[in-house]
């Protein structure tokens, strides 16, 4: 294809949008509303999942060792645990630290020293050195605990199976449900948008058949429609992304200022993180539907 033809197609595509302004606006409007709904839902799901994951990561597993194990042996156990992929954090808590922590938690920071001083040299929690472990994925807890229990020198492993299982199933439920809803929303979006594009092109059936009878190739007829589809797709997806971004930033700020308790309960996913996925996703969906919608719809009318 010659450069002049390419340039002509682009100019025609832009002109077509203006010539068929009502249909262009209808297509863009449909796309904006669909992707806006999709975006809102996506933001809710992402934050919900992040919240669940935060909770998951705070589910601790405590590993205690056999009596009289040397520091090297404890370190060796630590090494073996560090090789596990599902590991998130591992922290060694010595017997002394455990005792200090216990006193501080039980008697308060100020009074703790009275108690610890009284027990100097005689730690009631001797042999209570431990590894405090969190996992990346709470669903793998059972498997992980079985592994650690099987290690030499491990006396016992403390964990809450109920919490782990509950969280794991909640997480997968939310995962599946949101996947299903996102798919349905996307399907509805694709259907509505391509329907609007179809109507826009069908009213220009005559134009297409004239072009074909003059001797235009399929590509020549189609190119301006493709340009048009891409522009409509770009506008239709950029607008909701910009609006959603504005809303997201301001709503979080507002919620945090208005209800400080939310800060403790939920760690909002940052705007950057949400939109690192949402922006390209919306653009791909928008431009994709615009482009392929116009290709498929023109195809029907090209057989002249």
């Amino acid at each position: 294809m010659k450069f002049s033809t390419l340039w002509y197609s682009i100019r025609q595509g832009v002109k077509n949008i203006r010539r068929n302004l009502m249909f262009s606006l209808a297509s863009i409007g449909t796309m904006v509303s669909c992707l806006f709904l999709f975006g809102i839902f996506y933001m809710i799901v992402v934050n919900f999942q992040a919240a669940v994951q935060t909770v998951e990561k705070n589910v601790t597993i405590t590993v205690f060792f056999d009596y009289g194990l040397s520091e090297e042996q404890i370190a060796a156990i630590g090494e073996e645990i560090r090789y596990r992929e599902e590991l998130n954090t591992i922290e060694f808590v010595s017997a002394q630290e455990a005792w200090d922590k216990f006193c501080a938690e039980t008697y308060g920071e100020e009074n703790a020293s009275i108690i610890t001083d009284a027990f100097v040299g005689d730690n009631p929690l001797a042999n209570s050195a431990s590894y405090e472990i969190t996992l990346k994925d709470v669903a793998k807890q059972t498997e992980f605990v079985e592994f650690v229990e099987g290690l030499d020198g491990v006396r016992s492993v403390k964990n809450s199976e109920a919490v782990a299982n509950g969280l794991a199933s909640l997480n997968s439920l939310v995962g599946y449900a949101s996947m299903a809803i996102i798919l349905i929303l996307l399907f509805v979006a694709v259907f509505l948008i391509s329907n609007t594009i179809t109507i826009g092109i069908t009213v220009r059936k005559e134009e297409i058949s004239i072009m074909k009878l003059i001797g235009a190739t399929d590509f020549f007829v189609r190119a301006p429609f493709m340009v048009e589809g891409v522009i409509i797709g770009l506008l239709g997806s950029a607008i909701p992304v910009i609006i959603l971004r504005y809303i997201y930033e301001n709503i979080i700020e507002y919620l945090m200022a208005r209800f400080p308790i939310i800060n403790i309960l939920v760690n909002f996913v940052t705007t950057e993180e949400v939109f690192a996925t949402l922006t390209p996703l919306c653009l791909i969906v928008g431009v994709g539907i615009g482009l392929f919608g116009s290709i498929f719809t023109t195809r029907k009318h090209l057989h002249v």
Partner: protein
Amino acid sequence: MLVLENVTVTYPTGITALDDVSINIEKGEFVFIVGSSGSGKTTLMKLLMKELEPTSGKVTVCGRDYAKVKRREIPKIRRKIGMVYQNFRLLKDRSVYENVAFAQRVIETPTRYIRRQVPSMLTLVGLANKYKSYPKELSGGEQQRVALARALVNNPEILLADEPTGNLDPKNSMEIMNLLEDVNRRGTTVVVVTHNRDIVNMMQKRVITVKHGKITSDEKKGGYIDEV
């Protein structure tokens, strides 16, 4: 140039539009195809434009057997044929200039040639001063002249005109016919489908009469033959 051999077209509805038709039109001829509506004239045009496949028989245009032409080759063949319609079929949202230029853009003519050829073609059809107008601002005769300019701008070997004067008054009809005759004099084969008796009688060209899908007469030079 245009050869139909034993062509039959039967539509899915069961109606036979053309029944074992054979026509041979030589290069440089001016031919009228006449007949009342429903006689199969439009089907004949569609065959020549390869808008339609014959149910049986062979269509050859510019030396190409249509049965052997692939779908992607159709545009190339159509570029050798200029087509004019009764209802003009102009692109309504484009100016006169753009409508004519469009035919050149389709075949990827460089813009600098388009800028030269379109005005000279519009001058030929007498519309040089209306290049900025839109089809709805023109009279029927003017619109048909734009259509003619569009059909001719790429120097086609064949010009097909389907009822070109169907929507025009006698004066405009005559002007269009004179233009077609000019075009024919320059060497383009011209085929005009019509049922305008006055024009056919006046022009005294080859007349092929179609009735109920069959050719009932083919006069080398003559007038409109009344259907009995």
